[in-house]
């Protein structure tokens, strides 16, 4: 074989990277946290997937960089990548026999070594690990040699099986209320993870359907339908979705409703931040400030405790909280909106921290309760009905989301929305076109503050109390991550981001310790490789990927849209 030496070098390099990533996933404790989470009972755990997944990705990356599509070359390159990755882990395992890493690295425990060596004796375990890494590389190679259609069906089927295994407990908890359907699932699931036949059935079913569907040209069928029929289908889908969303709390039960409420509040705030960052291009890192202001205003106005002021009802206090939040947004915005993009980010960050420090201080303790916070915050009531539990509050939050979503969608294509986008693209040109820079930016800032304040007020009622600890910088980063990962400027993206970034970690307790690790990594990863997000805004997708949404020949590293002037 005459393969260029650069291909070999790349394969070894990718293998080393894969090995280091896998090592890191182990040493930060992620692999161990999932060490007993069986995906398929007795066959594979999520921890093992986390150990091997980096090899898979790096093997794909090696294959991508190999110019020749000769099956033998591809197999050798991918196998080499996997093997080198496995070797990195093997070297660490052998070193750990002589050096006590554990005195510094808390996760380099015998348990982790056992996980890496598949619970086998050391020497055999290391050999099995190397073999598994090699096989992972070969699987990547085999996968990339398949035809497009089979590959898509296969990857979807694998994903579904992994997800089913991972969410076993949740699915069963929900299915308990579903009568005979639960028996199908009970058959598919073992004590931990899926049973082997269950996994096989799910795999074949999903793979088969996906393969069959991929042969059907959905767009063509849709085009052949009459416009009336198309409209009927569209509204029918919306109606069904609406009914499902309305019934969600009842279907899911109290525990999941609470998670749903959290996701909802974050989505609500994401919609607001999306206006500020996505539409107007103002990177606001102190978004949590308005959240805190909303929550505390509501708390101070409605609490039945001594620190309270007026003991108002929720429906009177909530608009007041919004007013205060918007006022704060305008007061902050007025002086700083002349600043350049990155300075604006830092100043808003500073503002968020100032608010938190003031709330915590003894100075404001008589009014805001200091570190003890405010308890017994008023609940919303309708007539005599008190909306106190998580299932009922969902509807209040949902109403908030619908209003916010409606405002955001309508604003997006309005005169104001276009002004925002013009400012985002080029401030000087926009100003020359007669856009009032200060007023337009202030409106974006105030709008963001409005939604954030609403989120804060709802959060305060949901929890029933507010503490300064709930309003740290991390909340701002949380919301920023969710709109960036969903797709800056994209409204459906906010929902996707909220479900993925807020919902998943709440559903999977094992994730809780690694949430910010994953956020950080995904922010970097998204900016480097997919700056348009998971559900990109239509215009941005066009800008980045040409006409048909296919990959453009030279991918721009980032949306030009995010340049907020200089």
């Amino acid at each position, binding site marked *: 074989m005459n393969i260029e030496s650069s291909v070999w070098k790349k394969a070894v390099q990718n293998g080393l990277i894969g090995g280091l990533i896998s090592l890191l996933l182990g040493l*930060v404790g*992620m692999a161990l946290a999932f060490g007993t989470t069986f995906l398929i009972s007795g066959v594979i755990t999520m921890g093992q997937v986390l150990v091997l997944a980096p090899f898979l990705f790096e093997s794909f990356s090696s294959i991508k960089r190999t110019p020749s599509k000769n099956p033998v070359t591809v197999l050798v390159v991918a196998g080499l990548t996997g093997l080198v990755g496995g070797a990195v882990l093997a070297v660490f395992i052998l070193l750990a026999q002589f050096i006590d890493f554990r005195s*510094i*690295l*808390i*996760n380099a425990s015998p348990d982790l070594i056992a996980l890496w060596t598949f619970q086998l004796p050391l020497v055999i375990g290391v050999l099995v690990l190397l073999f598994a890494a090699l096989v992972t590389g070969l699987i990547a190679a085999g996968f990339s040699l398949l035809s497009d259609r089979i590959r898509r069906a296969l990857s979807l089927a694998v994903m579904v099986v992994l997800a089913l295994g991972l969410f076993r407990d949740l699915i069963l908890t929900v299915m308990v209320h579903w009568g005979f359907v639960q028996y199908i699932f009970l058959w598919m699931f073992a004590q931990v993870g899926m049973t082997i036949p269950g996994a096989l059935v799910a795999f074949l079913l999903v793979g088969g359907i996906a393969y069959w569907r991929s042969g059907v040209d959905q767009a063509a069928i849709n085009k052949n339908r009459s416009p009336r029929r198309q409209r009927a289908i569209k509204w029918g889908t919306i109606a069904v979705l609406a009914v499902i969303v309305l019934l969600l709390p009842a279907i899911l039960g109290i525990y999941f409703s609470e998670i749903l409420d959290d996701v909802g509040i974050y989505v609500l705030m994401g919609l607001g931040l999306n206006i500020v960052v996505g539409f107007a*291009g103002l*990177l606001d*890192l102190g978004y949590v400030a308005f959240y805190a202001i909303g929550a505390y205003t509501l708390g101070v106005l409605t609490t039945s405790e001594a620190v309270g002021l007026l003991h108002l009802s929720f429906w009177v206090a909530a608009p007041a909280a919004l007013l205060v939040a918007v006022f704060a947004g305008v007061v902050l915005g*007025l*002086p*700083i909106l*002349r*600043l*350049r*993009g*990155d*300075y604006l*980010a*830092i*100043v808003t*960050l*500073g*503002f968020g*921290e*100032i608010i938190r*420090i*003031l709330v*915590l*201080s*003894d*100075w404001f*303790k008589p009014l805001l309760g200091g570190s003890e916070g405010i308890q017994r915050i008023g609940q919303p009531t309708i007539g005599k009905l008190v909306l106190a539990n998580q299932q009922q509050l969902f509807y209040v939050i949902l109403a908030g989301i619908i209003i916010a979503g409606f405002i955001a969608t309508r604003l997006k294509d309005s005169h104001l929305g276009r002004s925002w986008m013009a400012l985002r693209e080029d401030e000087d040109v926009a100003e020359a076109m007669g856009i009032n820079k*200060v007023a337009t930016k202030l409106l974006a800032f105030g709008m963001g503050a409005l939604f954030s304040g609403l989120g804060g007020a709802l959060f305060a009622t949901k929890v029933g109390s507010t503490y300064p600890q709930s309003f740290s*910088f991390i909340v701002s*980063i949380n919301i*920023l*991550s969710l709109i*960036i990962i969903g797709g800056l400027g994209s409204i459906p993206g906010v929902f996707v981001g909220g479900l993925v970034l807020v919902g998943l970690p709440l559903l999977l307790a094992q994730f809780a310790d*690694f949430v*910010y*690790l994953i*956020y*950080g*990594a*995904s*922010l*970097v990863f998204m*900016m*480097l490789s997919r*700056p348009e997000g998971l559900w990109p805004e239509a215009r941005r997708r066009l800008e980045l990927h040409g006409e048909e949404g296919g990959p453009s020949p030279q991918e721009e*590293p*980032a*949306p*030009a*849209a*995010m*340049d*907020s002037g*200089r």
Partner: protein
Amino acid sequence: MLRTWRQRLTLTDVFIWVIGLAIAVAVIWGSISTLRLHIYSGSGWIDLTIRGLALGGVYALIAMGYTMVYGILKMINFAHSEVFMSGPFTACFVALGLASSGFLNAQPVISLAIILVVSMGVSAGIALLLERICYRPLRTAPRLVPLITAIGASFFLQYTFRGLFGSGSFGYPAIKALQQSWTISGIQIFKTQVVVIAGSVLMMLILFAIVQWTKIGKAMRAVSEDKEAAELMGINVDSIIVFTFGLGGASAGAAGVLYTLLFPVVNFYMGFIPGIKAFTAAVLGGIGNVPGAFLGAIILGLLESVGPNLFLTGLGIPSPSQLKDAIAFIVLVLILIFRPTGLLGERISRDKA
């Protein structure tokens, strides 16, 4: 330019100046009434001042990383606070290792030198990794993209450290030789404070010498002046950027070692607040300006240690030192609003503001 000042005056300006005046009045009024209360003695003020100087020295070394990277890439390296945080971590582990063999207290000077070198090396290494993975591919991207990447990298590093080393705090082993203090006419001066001030001034002088008098420093200044022209003159811009990140990282690592002498507790979230303050210092002095960063850091350190007691006590605010971080942030906001070019940043003001 033909308009009179009255026509140029906008509502925003009025608003800004009213806020500025209000804060100035509050500060002056607070200071006067504090001094009239005679709560603190003269030696108390001097004690606070020395603390402020030591703190300022540490901030200055961190600020160097921000200011040099900004000078060259026109980018805020938000993850620099985590580069700093890796310094204390390394220092702590090395010091614990040395302490367990008894070497730390037998040879304190050599131990400190070893700790310093290793920490500087690790921090520089992390800074270089950041540059290679997160910033180099985005060098031509719009301004906010690397900023978001930097925020992501910052969180990733924080929580990687948390995962690797645990979420608890580590106690830094005490060095016996540094625990004494002198008392000069009623003022207690700790040896650590002297070491920190002397160390940071020395490091600053070395950095200044590198930037001002060596060939590579000249190249750095040329790149920050005009990247394209520098490239045409035969300067390898890439390697200059790498060198800058390395130098900033090493300086942050040194800052980390000095910081642990002042506050001997190490944890994964310790980088955020000093990082933001060092950035404030860099902006205060004029970002991109090396002496400016030093000046800004010293001023900020003094404001932070003397400020709460001086400005706020007189206003009747309880436990004013709780608000010391808020003072730093307010300085940041005010300086960016009133003088974004900083105290010494005249040159940048013309082409960048």
